[in-house]
């Protein structure tokens, strides 16, 4: 409400903002209990001047890269603050009516049309990735957060670079490369890219990277597990003879990055990595429930979280205690719970589910693994 002049150039005389805030107050009074944003959203969801929580984008196109991957081009709302190649964006997608959040690397530098793009590889069983690759269509809306991430090239760009990527680990790197190569005066940087994939056909951006190699923009080392065997990082010294002169950036699965870190540490070389954290929730029966007030309770798989919390003296909102009144709904920041009525699992993973956690009904949910409950979040 207060940030009326936060975006756009300041216009008019000194009395401008006062007049605008007065008008805004009248407009707000005219639409209560809605907020002005709710009303504007009906007509122009991509407009600027709103809080970050409402940042959205419209899918412009979905372009297949391989059989199981696609690049999603998105026109973001006007409040999109831009990004540096190598950064990622958190994306909220409605899959089967349910909003799920995932993180994807941006695969472009800043574009003239202000669009952003990210490339998704459909992982087996991946609800969101499969949705985006196979079912997302132009025109659909998605939720966005501002770009984040430290995996960016330093300025000025070092003279010699080594980029090591595996599988979808190429996605932040392709953003860096495209940005470097699209400049009118190409950056005078000597780049070697070691690009590891399971097979030639599953290699995202294969042709684009080969074209860069042919054009002399970079030295491309392609490694395919099915042809060359799984990459042993000790081989790097052979593959990249001037390894010691290069600043290394790597992105890929944890196994590769761990090995690479050890390899570089042994040689006293600098390495910057980006880790994609996989969703690792193994739902079980019962678990440690941690509440926002600091208390921890061991709870079995049959006890409602509400009872467990109250038993430990946590102040919990409550209601009907039978799952109908929603009086006990509080966010679960992380963890897994099971619906005691039908066994349905609800999982919250920071960075993967909504930024506020997943609201759960504590009276019919039992711990299905360790979980964090923010019981105070309702007393807004």
């Amino acid at each position, binding site marked *: 409400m207060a940030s009326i002049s936060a975006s756009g150039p300041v216009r008019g005389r000194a009395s401008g903002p006062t007049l605008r805030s007065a008008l805004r107050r*009248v407009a707000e*009074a*005219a*639409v*209560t*209990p*809605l907020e002005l944003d*709710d*009303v504007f959203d*009906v007509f122009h969801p991509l407009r600027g001047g709103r809080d970050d*929580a409402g940042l959205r984008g419209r899918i412009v196109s979905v372009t297949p890269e391989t059989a199981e991957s696609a690049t999603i081009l998105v026109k973001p709302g006007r409040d999109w603050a831009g990004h540096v190649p190598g950064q990622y964006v958190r994306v909220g997608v*409605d899959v*089967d*009516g*349910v*909003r*799920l959040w995932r993180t994807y690397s941006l695969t472009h530098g800043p574009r003239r049309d202000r669009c952003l793009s990210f490339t998704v590889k459909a992982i087996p069983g991946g609800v969101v990735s499969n949705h985006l690759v196979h079912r997302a269509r132009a025109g659909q809306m998605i939720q966005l957060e501002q770009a984040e991430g430290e995996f960016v090239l330093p300025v000025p760009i070092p003279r010699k670079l080594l980029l090591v990527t595996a599988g979808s680990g190429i996605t932040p790197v392709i953003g860096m490369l495209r940005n470097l190569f699209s400049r009118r005066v190409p950056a005078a940087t000597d780049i070697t890219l070691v690009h590891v994939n399971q097979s030639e056909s599953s290699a995202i951006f294969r042709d684009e990277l080969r074209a860069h190699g042919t054009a002399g923009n970079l030295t491309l080392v392609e490694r395919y597990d099915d042809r060359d065997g799984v990459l042993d990082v000790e081989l790097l010294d052979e593959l990249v003879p001037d390894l010691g002169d290069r600043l290394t950036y790597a992105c890929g699965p944890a196994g590769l990055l761990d090995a690479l870190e050890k390899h570089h540490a042994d040689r006293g070389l600098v390495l910057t990595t980006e880790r994609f954290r996989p969703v690792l929730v193994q739902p079980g029966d019962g678990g440690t429930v941690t509440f926002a007030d600091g208390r921890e309770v061991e709870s079995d798989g049959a006890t409602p979280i509400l009872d467990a919390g109250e038993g430990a003296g946590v102040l919990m909102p409550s*209601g*009907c205690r*039978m*799952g*109908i*009144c*929603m*009086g006990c*709904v509080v966010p679960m920041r992380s963890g897994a719970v099971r619906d005691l*009525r*039908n066994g*349905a699992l609800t999982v919250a993973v920071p960075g993967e*589910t*909504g930024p*506020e956690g*997943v*609201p759960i*009904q504590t009276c019919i949910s039992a711990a299905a693994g360790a979980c964090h409950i923010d019981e105070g979040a*309702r007393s807004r």
Partner: protein
Amino acid sequence: MTTITKKPLHGETNPTAHLTPEDIELLGIELDAIRQDVLDDRGDRDSAYIRRVISVQRRLELGSRAVLLGSALPPLWVLGTVGLSVAKILENMEIGHNVLHGQWDWMRDPKIHSTTWEWDMATPAEQWKHSHNEVHHTYTNIVGQDNDLGYGIMRVDEEQRWHPMYLAQPFWNFLNACFFEYGIAAYDLELGRNLRIPKDKRPAEFKDNVRKVLGKIRRQATKDYLVHPALALPFGAFVPTLAANFTANVVRNLWSHSVIMCGHFPEGVETFERASIPDHETRGEWYLRQMLGSANISGSKAIHLMSGNLSHQIEHHLFPDLPSNRYAEVAPKVRALFEKYDLNYCTRPMPQQVYSAWHKVVRLSLPNDWLATTNRSNVVDQVKLLWGMTTKGPRARRAGSARLKQLARKVAPAA
């Protein structure tokens, strides 16, 4: 109406007498299965539905308010007022009520969630969720516990002793209908009970809630009766716009009051005694109480939409957190269960249901059996009797009641 457990005392049958505890648990399992079928199938179609309804409602409201800027012209006034009334009804019924039930929480959209939603209603969402979702839906139709039965100001059962003040209850009920949103706010505050407590002893929570309700009322009234009329001022339509907003609010109130009366008040709906509810009511027993304590409205899709699908009150009470667009789909399955377990599925078209509910309000405003025993030939005597019961104190009331009971017994065989 007699509470279900006392029916045998009055020569009526308890409609659940034929069910064994095992039957009731089986019934619960079958209802759970119906619920689970919907949960398994819930998805894009449902989320698209609620988003469309919300979008249509917002466009309709904004459009109607734009039309009302020209409401100095009578045709525009009519058009804008009709549109605004419909928009307000949709906002309260199909959207607000159902969102606040958490029917759309599964979408994980913070904009359409029971914990964040606020509605165009005098009572703040948080307080309403307590009195409605928690008290009414848990203790449905338990006399003395479910205040939706008569909102604490009406005589809803023959077993409540008659008092002359109840003669005014049809009038109260009508007044409550016109200003229903304020009635609901007062009732969410438990205003009657709290005002009886000396001022300095009232709970702090009550004072806090009063402050919140007054704030909400102020904001809603400012919008409808000040800001929008003022916006129409340049077009010379301050007063017509104010009148249009007032009319739309009253129309919305009358409509929602009617729909809600149809849900639990018509003849054929059962009430329950507090003492008859076991301490640990099973899911099956709870389901059974919901089945018997609710009534449906049959009719077109438009009726279902405008009633917020409370036309499927029975299904709503069984599954308060299922998306409202699914009630029509589960209704045939639910009805088949009523038949299987030989229970009365109370459904009638809206005019009949409204009449039935109002008939009951009037009947219970009078002493027991008065209405049933009055006919054209004895109307003078009956009015005299009523006059006596009204003006001559408790003894006359007891005598009058006995007389009416006697008359009723005479009438009964003839009928």
